[in-house]
């Protein structure tokens, strides 16, 4: 209980409150502008937060992470252009509603569903944390190794239809992380005699290149475009009443969000598709899905907003990020020497509670902000895309250069920017590279530290948690093979689908 108070006390500071407001309202705006998403914003702000207190920096980044999806629903519904990647499914039912003259209804429903999902996710996080505090100390080196390995396997398998591409990019990430001086044996790895490679390839330089610079290049090389959303009329609170008629869908979708958000490597897309499928299967009007079904909209928005809180669970409890944004936040912890993992729950539980409260507050702030300022936002998002590209380029410079004032970093980052642009244009995933880099580092360190205690390979899985994790890995691989065989037997023709055309936001 006193930890709860300590957590609340952490937030009762003017700089934390300011960070919370800047993060949540900034996040909504960033989410609402098609062309910049939370990944771009967090990558740019990351180095700037290093000089702030951990709680201040984390609240701001968490604010952007948790609120961008609220904002992203606005252009998804009004102009059929998702503001962030995870709002793609929202446009499926939201835009047809706008075409039927129900834009206001769709927006207010999306906000209410998002709020429901967000609060549900935090509720689960708070309820689960005593359990986590019990289980987390049972995670030793080999358990964390296996969990990180599972994360890599899942991030590859989650990219259905692109497994080879996702696999090669994840491996590329693991490789990047090995470049430089090996910390244990002091031998050079892939430095080719260049001194700038000895210290390794910095994660933030890569992140800024792959997410921010690539986006700037993408916008600058594409034709100029001005998103034009029409204002809507009516009270925004009406969605809450309508949501109450679909509590079941909203809750199940949020639950999918929580479960898949916790599992490293899966995240919003999988959660959305599963809850969307569920909503359609159990709906009284399944034929409306894709043509303006309120249930489809709710399923999509509730699922994606439940993810951020849940994604904090593996990050805080094990130090294993499940997707790109939490991977970026991990570096904030490292810079301040707060190492997430089992010890965090024992030594810094107040920080954990502080983050929970910040998450609740941010959902409330965003909801209130949106109830009054949706039409203002429709004006703000009219930034021409190429101009946005110019601004992202200028802001990325702050991010890369402030790390250590190195021109070499800028060049490396620019190279990754071009790589990111190619991946975006080819509709190939970027996230596996980042997760490969972060999880690859964890895998290497943890396997090494587990080694001395392993006499035979079976010692790896002779503890309960490690055995469970190992079984899950085997199960996941087996299930994947089974689906492949089924698919082959069914002789299913190739179904072209552009739904994942979402890397570009």
């Amino acid at each position, binding site marked *: 209980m006193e930890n709860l108070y300590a957590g609340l006390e952490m937030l009762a500071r003017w700089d934390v409150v300011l960070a919370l407001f800047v993060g949540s309202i900034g996040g909504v705006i960033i989410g609402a502008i098609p062309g910049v998403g939370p990944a771009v914003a967090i990558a740019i702000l990351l180095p*700037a937060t290093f*000089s702030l207190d951990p709680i201040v920096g984390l609240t701001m980044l968490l604010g952007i992470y948790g609120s961008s999806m609220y904002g992203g629903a606005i252009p998804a519904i009004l102009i059929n252009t998702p503001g962030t990647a995870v709002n793609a499914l929202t446009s499926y039912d939201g835009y047809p509603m706008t075409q039927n003259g129900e834009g206001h209804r769709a927006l207010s429903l999306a906000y209410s569903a998002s709020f429901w999902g967000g609060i549900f996710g935090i509720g689960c996080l708070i309820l689960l944390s005593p359990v986590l505090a019990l289980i987390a100390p049972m995670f030793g080196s080999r358990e964390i190794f296996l969990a990180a390995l599972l994360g890599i396997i899942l991030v590859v398998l989650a990219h*259905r*239809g692109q497994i080879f591409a996702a696999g*090669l990019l994840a*491996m*590329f990430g*693991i*490789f990047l992380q090995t470049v430089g001086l090996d910390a*244990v*044996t002091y031998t*050079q*790895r*892939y430095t*080719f005699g260049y001194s700038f490679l000895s210290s390794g390839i910095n994660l933030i330089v890569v992140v800024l290149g792959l997410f921010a*610079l690539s986006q*700037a*290049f*993408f916008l600058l*090389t594409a034709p*100029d475009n001005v998103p034009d959303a029409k204002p809507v009329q009516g009270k925004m609170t009406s969605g809450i009443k309508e949501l109450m008629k679909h509590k079941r869908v909203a809750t199940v979708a949020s639950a999918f969000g929580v479960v898949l958000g916790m599992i490293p490597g899966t995240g919003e897309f999988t959660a959305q*598709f*599963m809850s969307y*499928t569920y909503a359609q299967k159990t709906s009284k009007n399944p034929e409306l899905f894709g043509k303006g079904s309120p249930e489809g909209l709710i399923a999509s928005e509730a699922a994606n907003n439940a993810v951020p809180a849940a994604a904090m669970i593996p990050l805080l409890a094990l130090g294993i990020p499940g997707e790109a944004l939490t991977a970026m936040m991990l570096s904030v912890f490292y810079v301040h020497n707060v190492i997430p993992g089992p010890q965090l729950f024992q030594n810094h539980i107040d920080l954990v509670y502080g983050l929970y409260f910040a998450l609740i507050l941010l959902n409330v702030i965003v909801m209130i902000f949106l109830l009054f300022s949706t039409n203002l936002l429709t004006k703000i998002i009219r930034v021409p895309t190429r*101009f946005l590209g*110019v*601004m992202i*380029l*200028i*802001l990325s*410079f*702050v991010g*890369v*250069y*402030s790390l250590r*004032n190195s*021109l070499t970093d*800028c*060049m490396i980052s*620019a190279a990754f*920017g*071009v790589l990111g*642009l190619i991946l975006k*244009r*080819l*509709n190939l995933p970027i996230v596996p590279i980042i997760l490969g880099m972060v999880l*690859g580092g964890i*895998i*290497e360190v943890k396997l*090494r530290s587990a*080694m001395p205690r392993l006499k035979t390979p079976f010692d790896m899985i002779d503890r309960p948690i490690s055995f469970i994790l190992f079984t899950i890995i085997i199960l996941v691989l087996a299930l994947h093979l089974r*689906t492949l065989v089924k698919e082959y037997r069914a002789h*299913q023709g*190739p*179904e*072209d*689908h*552009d*739904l*994942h055309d979402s890397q570009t936001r």
Partner: protein
Amino acid sequence: MSRVKTLQSLFKRYRRPGDIVFAWLILIFSIFMLSQIGDQTAYKNGGKLFAQPRFWPAVSLGLMTVFSAFHLLGSALSERIEGRWREVLSWLAAFEYAGWFIAYAYLVPYGGYLPTTVLFAVALSLRAGYRSARMLIAAVLSSIVIVVLFKAVLKVNLPSGLIYETLPNGLRQFMLTYF
């Protein structure tokens, strides 16, 4: 089964033009890197396999080569979509902006953060095709806001420009600290 089907179809993506070029490039890159493993990593005699400095580069590059080969195979077997080289040209176009970015980063320590940023914003806006006074003023104002926010307010670690040294005494100190 039908549920599995719906899920699969939702997750599928199709190949864009130019995919095969990327597949070739990445395969060549991984084979080249793998071929350098003897020179670029060490193998300590007597140490355990998993603790070798060569172990993870070998695993990652090995698998990367395998995955790239399959990706290339998939690309080669897929129906060809027109516009491959047009797509590659659009990748090359990105190098121009990468050049702009590096030039900007190169000039900041000499020209000072504020003047370089304002000039860069205006120049790049012109390059992007904006001619109206409204857009150019917007570029100037936004770049000033960015500089004030990051350098003066957040005190982010950025070099102060050599050009400020030529300013008169009082102003010089002010510019060096805040812009």
